[in-house]
């Protein structure tokens, strides 16, 4: 571990390698992709939230001039057949396939039903209108508590609740129940001088990435399938498409184009298998694009939830017990992030007695997908609001309250793991010392709120190859799609090892045939794990270069030392050569040097954040104006501080949107009425102050430079921080998200 070590490249702010192409519009995204003979695909989507498909007649669409092929679920390998083969797992496979193209039932408005390939996108669109689908419309269930009622309409006749290893007899919309316990909650609550219990409701929100999903698929004559697309992980696309199409991964190549945002929403596949089906049917390359409404209605948002939190503390401010009930909407199929929500909810605190119950519940909304720290923001909205109320009732400063109870190395999380070295306390101390926290905040209807958050981060597999060039530069080959500046943060770790400037690294994100297996850009893992692989690959290069220097000087490798980009001979000969000059000697010393590194590291190291927000409430209109925002976060080690700050700012901003205005608004039939950026109100730059990002560095022992993932945790605290600030401003505890103007007016009794 590398505390307080001085680095040459790590910690500096070079220009990102992909920056110029992106700001000048030259970077190639999936929608830009062109190939001879290209057809255009469009997907027909369900107008109903819940209906049985009685029949689909595609003949009128097929007859439209320019239409080259139409596909439905009939064109997918039958998932039913595979139930017998695979047992339990096949149920999930059916869910996976049905979400791509509905077979027997549509389960949400926007559910894909059929797709058309035609010579122009407009013809494909018109052809979709000519597909006749006969539906038997069923009542939708649109809210988690409603879906849990015994008499609620059932989405899946075969879904039965699994609860800690047991499966229920009767079908239900509750897919699973999990529970974590620590200590003796009953005893803990008995020891408390004060107990606060509150209910919370959060809305369905979307990641809102700028670039809609896209995919172009093409089959070679010999059956090799290539897919060009926007994704957070080319290898996961390969796996999912292989599974859905029952096609070998060896025959699928996925080429990741540049990606215009994902935030977790570009891991699951939607139109990629559809493009492949259309390409197979027509024998031509087919490009399928989504529009914004498709994205809102047909891809995974993060779920609405109902949360109950109960916490007790002593007069001295020590939390004695905590209890949480988390019911999360999975959307149309099981798979809500209630698990991570349960892992994170009390993780900032050292609490001896805890019980957490989590429920994954299906409703007639799109199947949820990950979104930045999935599950944790919902959970923290509840717990961090209750923490604020406890501190307030006990007359203890909220940051002081966190210092009293804050989790440290060696404390156990309720779900089991023991914290390694973590930096929560440091974020609280830094927030407390920040001029924002001590600035006056006395004006009428102005309020200040704080909240903290945790995200565990993940490791997983990454591979990097480095090719050494004769001019002293290196080509770094990686499989991590670059969403937030990771070409730079990965390249910099290799550069540090080799003592070369970041600009001497030429990073390329390549397809699945051209680099070793690499897991998704997600879980805040990329700078950590792919950076780790780059470090290892650079170490490999360094070892090989030392061998070359030894050969050049005819000494033993043990007599060659490498420091600051310079190889030197020790013990005898007075020889020196720079990395760059040695690169020029490769062909004379044995040929090319290629280094490789592969990792699957276990020590991702959790991340903590503490946010401070000042805001103003217009008590006549209920509108909240964010005035000042400070986000403190432990980055372990900030490889490229600008991109860490960018992640912190972006997470905070998405949290502000989630807190104040973002939500899926449904009509009684279960159709989203605000499926556009006009009415799905994400914050614009006029709605935000500059977000002051403050980086704290408590190195992660699980990484050579101490890196912790930084991308997700900044979205965890904002909702509660804003709710706590609203309370400070107007004395009302808001417990429902979003805290939109109409809800504030209602809470203030104005309407």
């Amino acid at each position, binding site marked *: 571990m590398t505390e307080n070590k001085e680095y040459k490249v790590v910690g500096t702010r070079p220009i990102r390698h992909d920056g110029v192409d992106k700001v000048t519009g030259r970077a190639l995204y999936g929608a830009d992709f062109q190939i001879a003979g290209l057809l255009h695909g469009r997907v027909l989507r369900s107008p109903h939230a819940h209906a049985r498909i009685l029949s689909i007649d595609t003949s009128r669409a097929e007859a439209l001039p320019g239409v080259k092929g139409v596909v439905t679920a009939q064109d997918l390998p039958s998932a039913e057949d595979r139930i017998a083969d695979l047992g339990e797992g096949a149920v999930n496979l059916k869910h996976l396939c049905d979400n791509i193209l509905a077979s027997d039932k549509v389960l949400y408005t926007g559910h894909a039903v059929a797709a058309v390939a035609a010579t122009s996108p407009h013809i494909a669109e018109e052809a979709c209108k000519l597909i006749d689908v006969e539906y038997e419309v069923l009542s939708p269930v649109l809210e988690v508590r409603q879906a849990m009622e015994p008499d609620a309409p059932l989405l899946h006749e075969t879904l039965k609740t699994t609860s800690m290893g047991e499966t229920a007899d009767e079908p239900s919309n509750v897919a699973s129940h999990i529970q974590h316990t620590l200590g003796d909650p009953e005893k803990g609550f008995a020891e408390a001088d004060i107990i606060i219990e509150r209910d919370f409701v959060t809305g369905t929100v979307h990641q809102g990435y700028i670039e809609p999903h896209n995919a172009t698929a093409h089959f070679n004559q010999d059956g090799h399938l290539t897919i060009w697309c926007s994704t957070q992980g080319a290898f996961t696309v390969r796996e999912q498409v292989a599974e859905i199409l029952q096609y070998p991964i060896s025959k699928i190549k996925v080429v990741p184009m540049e990606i215009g945002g994902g935030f977790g929403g570009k891991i699951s596949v939607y139109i990629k298998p559809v493009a492949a089906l259309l390409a197979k049917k027509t024998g031509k390359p087919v490009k399928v694009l989504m529009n914004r409404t498709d994205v809102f209605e047909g891809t995974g948002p993060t779920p609405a939830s109902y949360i109950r939190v109960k916490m007790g503390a002593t007069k001295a401010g020590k939390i004695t017990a905590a209890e949480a009930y988390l019911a999360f909407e999975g959307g149309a199929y099981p798979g809500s992030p209630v698990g991570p929500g349960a892992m994170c909810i009390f993780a900032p605190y050292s609490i001896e007695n805890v019980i957490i119950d989590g429920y994954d519940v299906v409703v007639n909304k799109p199947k949820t997908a990950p979104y930045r720290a999935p599950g944790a923001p919902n959970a923290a909205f509840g717990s961090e609001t209750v923490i604020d109320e406890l501190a307030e009732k006990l007359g203890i400063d909220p940051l002081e309250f966190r210092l009293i109870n804050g989790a440290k190395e060696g404390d156990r999380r309720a779900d089991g793991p023991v914290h390694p070295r973590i930096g929560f306390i440091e974020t609280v101390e830094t927030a407390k010392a920040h001029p924002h926290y001590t600035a006056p905040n006395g004006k009428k209807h102005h309020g200040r709120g704080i909240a903290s958050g945790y995200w565990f981060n993940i490791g997983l597999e990454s591979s990097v190859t480095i090719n050494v060039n004769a001019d002293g530069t290196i080509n770094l080959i990686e499989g991590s799609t670059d969403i937030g500046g990771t070409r730079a943060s990965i390249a910099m770790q290799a550069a540090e090892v080799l003592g070369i400037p970041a600009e001497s690294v030429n990073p390329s994100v390549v397809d699945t045939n051209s680099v070793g297996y690499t897991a998704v850009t997600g879980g805040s893992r990329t700078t950590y794990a792919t950076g780790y692989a780059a470090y290892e690959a650079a170490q490999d290069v360094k070892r090989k270069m030392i061998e070359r220097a030894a050969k050049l000087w005819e000494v033993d490798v043990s007599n060659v030392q490498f420091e600051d980009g310079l190889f030197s001979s020790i013990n005898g000969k007075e020889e020196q050569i720079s990395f760059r000059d040695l690169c020029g000697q490769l062909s004379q010393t044995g040929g090319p040097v290629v280094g490789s590194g592969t990792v699957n590291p276990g020590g991702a190291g959790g991340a903590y954040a503490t946010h401070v927000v000042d805001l103003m409430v217009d008590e006549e*209109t209920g*509108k909240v104006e964010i005035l000042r925002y400070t986000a403190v976060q432990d980055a372990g080690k900030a490889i490229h501080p600008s991109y860490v700050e960018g992640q912190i700012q972006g997470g905070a901003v998405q949290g502000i949107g989630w807190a104040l205005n973002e939500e899926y608004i449904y009509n009684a039939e279960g159709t989203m009425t605000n499926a556009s*950026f*006009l*009415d799905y*109100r994400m914050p*614009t730059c006029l709605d935000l102050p500059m977000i002051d990002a403050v980086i704290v560095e408590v190195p992660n022992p699980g990484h050579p430079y101490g890196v912790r993932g930084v991308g997700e945790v900044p979205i965890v605290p904002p909702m509660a921080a804003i709710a706590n600030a609203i309370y400070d401003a107007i004395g009302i505890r808001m417990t429902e998200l979003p805290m939109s103007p*109409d809800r504030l007016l209602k809470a203030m009794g104005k309407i």
Partner: protein
Amino acid sequence: MRDFAYITANTVSEAVTLLDEKGQSARILAGGTDLIVQVREARRDVDWMIDIKSIPEVNVLDYNADTGLTLGAAVECYKIYAVDEICDAYPGLVDATKIIGGTAIQGRAAVGGNLCNASPAADCIPPLIVLNASCVIAGPNGARELPVEQFCTGPGQTAFDNGEMLVSLKIPAPANNSSSFYLRFIPRNEMDIAVVGAGASVTLDDAKQTIVSARIALGAVAPTPLFAEEASALLAGREVSDAAIDEAAQAAQSIARPISDMRGTAEQRTHLVGVLTRRALNGAIQRIRDAA
């Protein structure tokens, strides 16, 4: 999006003849910031798009302190707020032109297009109403004039007969000691459609204490923008006071017939009519008092 024909009309009569001939399948294209979006999203079927931007009369922007403003139907928002005299004379209209969309949209969007699209939430319509604007309409049977408050007949519906188009808007010269103000409520600070909009114009006496006359108009609280006639009338002759303004605000609230939708609830909108009417009236009065 399905195919359509694009035609440039060079004269009013050419445009009117085309409109008359093609009927419902033809639409006038001004800035296109409503029309093209609607066609792309399949919310409107159009076979003929008649671009009027080459017609001289629809590009007129002429202000005269005695006779007032002639505003061609296709004049873009940004041209209006670039003229200082217009900003001084009709600040309420300028308020609206500065908040439509953003800079890019304002470079294309016309006030005439905003009116002819006839959205209940259109930002320019309440200020046009309070400024006593009238529509100059050309049609197969010649020209006619119509007060703006009578122009919209329902969401997206107008008083146009077959073959008619808007040539220009006429706004009388402002009276002494008068001003206007428009504001809307949106949950964000840009890129939203008004949850409620309110415009007011006020004329004060020379002492700037008594209201000589006032006009109030509301957006997004009924199928069309509303002229709040009674609320306006009850201010005439009143001393400027919170009580008078509250009364007018309540009268304005009483004519609101809002719906609940994804942009806001009916109760919220009715409440906001009161808030915004007060703010619009106070804003106009403040402008009169601030003027030298």
